[in-house]
């Protein structure tokens, strides 16, 4: 049996760990709040943009000839854009994204894609992919916990370029969507070519005023405006995915750290019990020895 001193030492070490996990939990809570605010700030812009896009699409005669809508019959090269965190200690957060990313890559290969490459956003994703020997086209890191729109447009600029110039025929986006503080949902989405129905459709809330809307003047023409809007749509989609992923990461980390703190608490209770037992046993032992010694003198 371990001596009470050994157990005491372990208790101290677990207490130290609990302090750290508690602090991380608090930090994650604060960052989660900020990330949620960022998602809220994006909403009016995203909604208005979507509305503008569908308005332009409806008023332009045709959707043909727009490079970002170009659905190619043969998929030769494809990119999988995975959004993970820069840091670990967030439970299964990063692993889940990558697993879905590998599945998406397999699905693309089944469809006949000869070459599927990854574009990881986030240090953890890049590290794991490299370790597994997956082909990486380009990686981004350093902004996972609080991404800006410019960060997103850097990534968007690259994938749009790859797509437009034919080096990629399809781009898939894999990320953790933020459903609620307790729930994250892995989302696999086709980013490019952009789904036509998304261009034309607007969400129900925005379409309420449709009846009263008259035809607008477009400057430049609707087709040309749409061509400018589509890349902005890609920027916004990636930005939203990054923000949701950041919120989901902080939520996952908070849960993981709360569990770790709780476990540390249980462990401390168990160890304290064991320590008291060991101390009691030692005392009993000593008394026995004293009594036995006294007996021997008689």
């Amino acid at each position, binding site marked *: 049996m371990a001596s009470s001193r050994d157990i005491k030492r372990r208790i101290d070490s677990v207490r130290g760990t609990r302090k750290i996990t508690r602090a991380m939990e608090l930090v994650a809570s604060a960052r989660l709040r900020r990330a949620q605010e960022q998602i809220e700030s994006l909403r009016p*812009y995203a909604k*208005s943009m979507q509305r503008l896009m569908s308005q332009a699409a409806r008023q332009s005669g045709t959707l043909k000839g727009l490079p970002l809508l170009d659905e190619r019959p043969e998929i030769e090269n494809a990119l999988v854009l995975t959004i993970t965190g820069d840091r670990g200690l967030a439970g299964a957060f990063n692993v889940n994204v990558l697993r879905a990313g590998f599945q998406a890559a397999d699905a693309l290969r089944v469809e006949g894609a000869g070459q599927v490459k990854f574009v990881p956003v986030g240090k953890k994703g890049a590290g794991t992919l490299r370790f597994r020997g997956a082909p990486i086209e380009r990686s981004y890191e350093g902004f996972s916990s609080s991404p800006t729109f410019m960060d997103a447009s850097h990534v968007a600029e690259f994938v749009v370029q790859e797509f437009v110039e034919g080096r990629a025929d399809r781009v898939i986006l894999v990320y953790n969507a933020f459903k609620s503080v307790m729930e994250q949902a892995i989302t696999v989405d086709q980013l490019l070519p952009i789904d036509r129905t998304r261009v034309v459709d607007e969400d129900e809330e925005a379409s309420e005023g449709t009846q009263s809307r008259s035809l*607008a003047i477009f400057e430049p023409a609707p087709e040309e405006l749409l061509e*400018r809007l589509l890349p902005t749509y890609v920027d916004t989609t990636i930005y939203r995915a990054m923000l949701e992923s950041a919120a989901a990461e902080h939520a996952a980390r908070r849960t993981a750290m709360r569990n770790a703190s709780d476990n540390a608490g249980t462990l401390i209770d168990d160890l304290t019990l064991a320590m008291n037992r060991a101390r009691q046993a030692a005392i009993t032992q000593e008394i026995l020895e004293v009594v036995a010694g006294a007996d021997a003198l008689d």
Partner: protein
Amino acid sequence: MSTSISTDRKRMSVDLLTPEGSVFSGQAWMVVAPSVSGELGILPRHQPIVAALRPGETRLKMLDDSQLVFATTTGYMSVEEDRVLILVEQAERADEIDQNRARAALQRAQDALAEAGDDESARNLAQAALRRAENRLRVSDKQH
């Protein structure tokens, strides 16, 4: 449809939105924005219009006749029933632009452009950043 709007004609509600949040939301009686084909002035009861914007300055004439100036990047403007909606990547009030920071950003953009070499997407980004930085400086200079 426009008869129901209001008896006061000299009013439009203006929203200046960026992906990172709303920069301005309120009433104005005139909006001048830099569209790709030239400056575009909007007064109340303007007919519906959707325009693409280039980097430049967006001016709002407020109800008290003061003027608010923003340095805005590429984006879009939509006018509909006296509601003006401006969507841009970045917008900053001209009198709040920090000239030193803006100059530092310009320098960074120039460095990035020099570094980009033949990486096309990096070069595009650096050029866009350069245009934004130049625009902020230009708009801010006019204020002083």
